[in-house]
């Protein structure tokens, strides 16, 4: 069986989650690899969430928020941008490839953009292979 990456997606309630919803109601075809967790703002996504996802067996983490300037809470997504810089350092030290974590922006009207980001990320992570190479690692569905 070919490798199907498990990607955890943190989507903000106001833009990206609506964008994903739009993609669904418009019946756009989209890779099924992203497990979506709705958060109120991409600014809610702490580095801890991302490490925890990898710790529990994710192969990639996708964080989606409102476009810069569009944040429902004015500047939540700017905070996310700043956090990502810190996070990237730690990820690279741990040997987690940069393509496994992606921060991007999807507005409520961009169902097609959501689909293209998910498809693109799924392919990139598929190319990298599973993050869990250990056979004895506990599996978390």
């Amino acid at each position: 069986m070919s490798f199907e990456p498990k990607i955890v997606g943190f989507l903000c309630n106001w833009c990206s989650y609506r964008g994903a919803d739009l993609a669904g109601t418009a019946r756009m075809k989209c890779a099924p690899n992203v497990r979506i967790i709705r958060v109120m703002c991409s600014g809610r996504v702490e580095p801890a969430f991302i490490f925890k996802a990898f710790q529990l067996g994710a192969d990639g983490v996708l964080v989606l928020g409102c476009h810069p300037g569009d944040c429902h809470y004015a500047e939540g997504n700017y905070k996310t941008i700043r956090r990502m810089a810190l996070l990237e350092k730690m990820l690279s030290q741990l040997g987690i490839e940069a393509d496994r974590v992606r921060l991007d922006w999807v507005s409520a009207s961009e169902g097609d953009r959501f689909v293209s980001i998910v498809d693109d990320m799924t392919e990139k992570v598929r190319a990298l292979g599973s993050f869990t190479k250990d056979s004895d690692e506990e599996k978390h569905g």
Partner: protein
Amino acid sequence: MNLEDIIKETKTYYCLECGKCTAVCPVSRYNSNFSPRLMLERALMGYRDELIHDRELFSCLACYACSKLCPSDVDYPVFTQKVRNLASGEGEHGDCAHSGTLHSLMKLMSRSDIRQRRLDWLDGCRTSEKSEVLYFVGCAPYFQPVFEDIEVSPVNIARNSIKILNALGIEPMVLPNERCCGHDLLWTGDVETFKKLAQLNAQMIKESGARKIVFSCPEGYRTFKIDYPQYVELDCELMHITELLAQNLATLSLRAKLSNPEVKRVTYQDPCRLGRHLGIYEPPREIIKAIPGIELTEMEHSGDESICCGTSAWTNCNSYSKDIRVERLLEAKATGAEVLVTSCPKCQIHFKCAMVDKSAQKGSDIEMKVMDIATLVTDALGGKSSE
């Protein structure tokens, strides 16, 4: 292991209920909900659930102030460690500081397939591929991005420690895929992951052929010295950098190399793991005294009476922890010293954090320079320290 076994193993039943532990406990002084005596009593009276589901179970700093005074020699920190292991089996894990980022990192490192790139800070340090001596870096590269904003640079401690080794004519090995020593996981009850980390480290060290391991982090040192032998076999001499330096003060010409630095008056914070855990009080003091022009003044509580920096294992860090730090910083300020020297990166992080956090209320009352002993020595060696 059930509660009865823990009581037997740690000889908790010798408890006289005298309460010296609670009287001397730095946490109890501020947090009236926490009392070592009460915890022990609960265990002895069989109130198992009350004990393991008490959120204060994770408040103990394992600073050993209690056990030093205990007339019955009850090892309260080890009792706590084992009860926490019991509690973690039932989903208790204390309140992780930094949302558990650091704990997640440690758990990620316990995977055997992780390939870290953790050594890109080594510039200016001489290391070698093959050497008798291994320098155990510890978690500094991971702490660096987290604590940069409170002006603590853990990798500089590592860098300066290697520079000191270089000055002693040692070009140590460093492991490119070194794992966390597991101290924090062991003390928050995650013995399973701790074992994995210990095994991975032991295997890598065995393969490296090192005969001697030097630490700059007291937690790593304690863990290797006291905890690892219970789980893994490791046939190496272990040393803290202050011990190595103190030894060489006499034999080498290091003393002659030390020059007058900019600081005049310093005071020294004994890290619990180095002091009460391992009994190393004198080497750091000998080193400080050996630097010409520096005067060492002691705080009201020093040596085996010294007070912990307020948080351990990144767990239950709260306003009480900050109160402990403020108290300690006030003591340090009262000595008239310009610099608070310590030999543990976490002490430095915790004190700096209190200064930033409490700056509105306390401001310059607690503001003071905190420096690792490795940085102090590297400065004295010719001002090429990484700061």
